[in-house]
């Protein structure tokens, strides 16, 4: 058989089967076996997000960061690092749908018409079942061949970040032995559902498409969470407790919003802070915390917005534990806020729950006096009884936010009311830059 031919059919299959036995017995060389029963196959590219207008059957639209786009095929020959080949899947939208990836191959000799290909491993995406791929003129037909992810476990473990490896194998020309083709590495993000504003799927590409540089953190902070409330709670706690952020006790100024004052979220700078401690520093205020919480939570599918509370005169505070503080107390500028901003659900009304990464409140039956039993204000209703006569009676048992933040009088609880998002903040979902 000439090296330019690739026979097929039962006789050739039988011939190759015999050769493979002889090879196992070391009676023929690998080179001899390959010459007669193999071919030279190459994996050229893999597309995860092969349909940028939908997210039910493939990966969602993402980009790396503000300046760098990501387009399919995400993996091309030569990429060896998982982070260079990222893909993100939405649990809700893919549930019950066939999910596929697409891969392109080349083969030589050019006359070869088919090969069988599979991939082992794959982590959350699972292994790829063996599949006959057709070739014409040395290139796979169609150029990008669909492989269904029959064994994926997307959704089983909730939100996830996993670096996966596929060990691709092939056999052709009737060969009976699987031969190694390529090992590929990919970073896979699993989120609850389509990211919400400020993140957008369309247009694509666009600076507001989900950033993988941010998914690296959001998926780690909310790892294992299976619903939006739990995900937002986990993210809020991370921001409050584990990022080294400190409240701006000098004046309570925002350090990570800009553009028309508090219109944009300086996410690039914040990611730099997370990476190496610089960026715009570790000092934050409530606007920053609400924006960080909203942006990272909405990236994994939550639907929060940054919204204000207070009154024209501000409101008085009962001691709380500010972000980065060692214990309960008042800010350095006194026991009052001109306003406060949190990540809020729904229509930011009295009955709507909120998430506040900026501080922890006293969770015991007397939130207006020591001792303090701190709780994270996560998924807590703004006010369970907003019109109640003041002062409120002790013991106070309601899991109600503003009563645990404010003094028990007209200047505190009585002056702290839902206001809504800053007018120029894109309804509390500040675009990222």
């Amino acid at each position: 058989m000439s090296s330019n031919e690739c026979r097929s059919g039962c006789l050739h299959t039988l011939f190759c089967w015999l050769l493979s036995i002889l090879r196992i017995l070391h009676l023929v060389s690998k080179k001899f076996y390959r010459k007669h029963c193999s071919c030279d196959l190459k994996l050229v590219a893999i597309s995860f997000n092969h349909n940028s207008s939908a997210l039910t059957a493939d990966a969602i639209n993402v980009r790396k960061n503000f300046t760098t786009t990501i387009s399919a095929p995400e993996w091309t020959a030569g990429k060896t690092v998982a982070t260079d080949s990222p893909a993100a899947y939405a649990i809700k939208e893919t549930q019950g749908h066939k999910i596929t990836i697409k891969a392109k191959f080349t083969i030589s000799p050019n006359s070869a018409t088919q090969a069988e290909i599979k991939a082992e491993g794959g982590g959350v995406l699972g292994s790829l079942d063996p599949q006959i791929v057709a070739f014409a003129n040395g290139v796979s037909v169609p150029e990008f061949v669909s492989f269904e992810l029959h064994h994926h476990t997307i959704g089983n473990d909730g939100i996830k970040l996993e670096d996966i490896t596929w060990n691709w194998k092939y056999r052709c020309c009737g060969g009976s032995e699987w031969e190694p083709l390529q090992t590929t590495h990919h970073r896979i993000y699993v989120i609850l559902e389509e990211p919400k504003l400020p993140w957008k799927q369309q247009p694509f590409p666009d600076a507001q498409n989900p950033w993988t540089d941010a998914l690296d953190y959001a998926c780690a902070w909310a790892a294992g969470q299976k619903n939006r409330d739990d995900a937002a709670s986990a993210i809020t706690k991370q921001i409050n407790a584990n990022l080294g952020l400190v409240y701006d006790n000098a004046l309570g100024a925002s350090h990570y919003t800009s553009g028309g004052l508090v219109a944009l979220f300086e996410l690039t700078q914040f990611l730099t802070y997370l990476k190496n401690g610089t960026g715009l520093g570790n000092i934050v205020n409530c606007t920053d915390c609400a924006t960080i919480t909203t942006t990272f939570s909405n990236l994994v599918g939550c639907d929060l917005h940054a919204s204000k509370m207070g009154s024209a005169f501000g409101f008085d505070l009962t001691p709380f534990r500010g972000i980065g503080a060692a214990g309960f107390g008042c800010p350095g500028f006194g026991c009052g806020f001109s306003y406060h901003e949190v990540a809020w659900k729904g229509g930011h009304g009295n009955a709507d729950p909120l998430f506040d990464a900026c501080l922890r409140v006293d969770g015991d039956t007397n939130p207006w006096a020591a001792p303090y039993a701190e709780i994270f204000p996560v998924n807590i209703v703004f006010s369970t009884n907003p019109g109640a006569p003041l002062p409120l009676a002790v013991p106070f048992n309601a899991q109600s936010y503003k009563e645990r933040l404010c003094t028990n009088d007209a200047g505190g609880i009585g002056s702290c009311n839902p206001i809504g998002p800053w007018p120029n903040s894109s309804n509390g979902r500040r675009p990222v830059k």
Partner: protein
Amino acid sequence: MIDNEADDAYRNQVKLNYQFSSWAGQTKVGNSNVRLLDFRIESEDLQGWKLEEKEELPPGTRQQRVFRYIHSPARESSNQRYVSTIFECSSVFDAHETLIDVVMTYMARKLPRCETRGLEIGDICFGSHGEVNLSVIFARFNILVEIQSAIPGLAPVNAFAGNVDSLILSRYSRNKEFHEG
């Protein structure tokens, strides 16, 4: 920027808190028509400070351009780091209105005047609470400057803020007639 009643009421209260009417539209040098154009800080402008980053930000309605600068001391031994946002506004009055826009976003109800903290800069200046000024906001002519310390701990901004104010004044002095338009 403010488009609803609650925010209007809040803005008015902030103006009262800061006694806006007592200083709005006034300058200490020159007249209230002074308008510096295309004010920027270049790397060689502030001796002893290294310019780490410079970025143009989208301006608001009262501003012509906004730049953010990050400076650190030229001496490597210090860990100070200052973030300055410089708003080049359309007029002196717009700079003062922008000052209100900015302090409205502070959670502190009111800030002390810089003069009470031993810092005499700008036409109007507010410092921070606490032992030292960790942040300062001042307007000089039509330029509004906000300087924040970007590291935890006591890194007072007074000296750096003074240098920035001197730079604005020197740009004005260089071509008074032109700027007083």
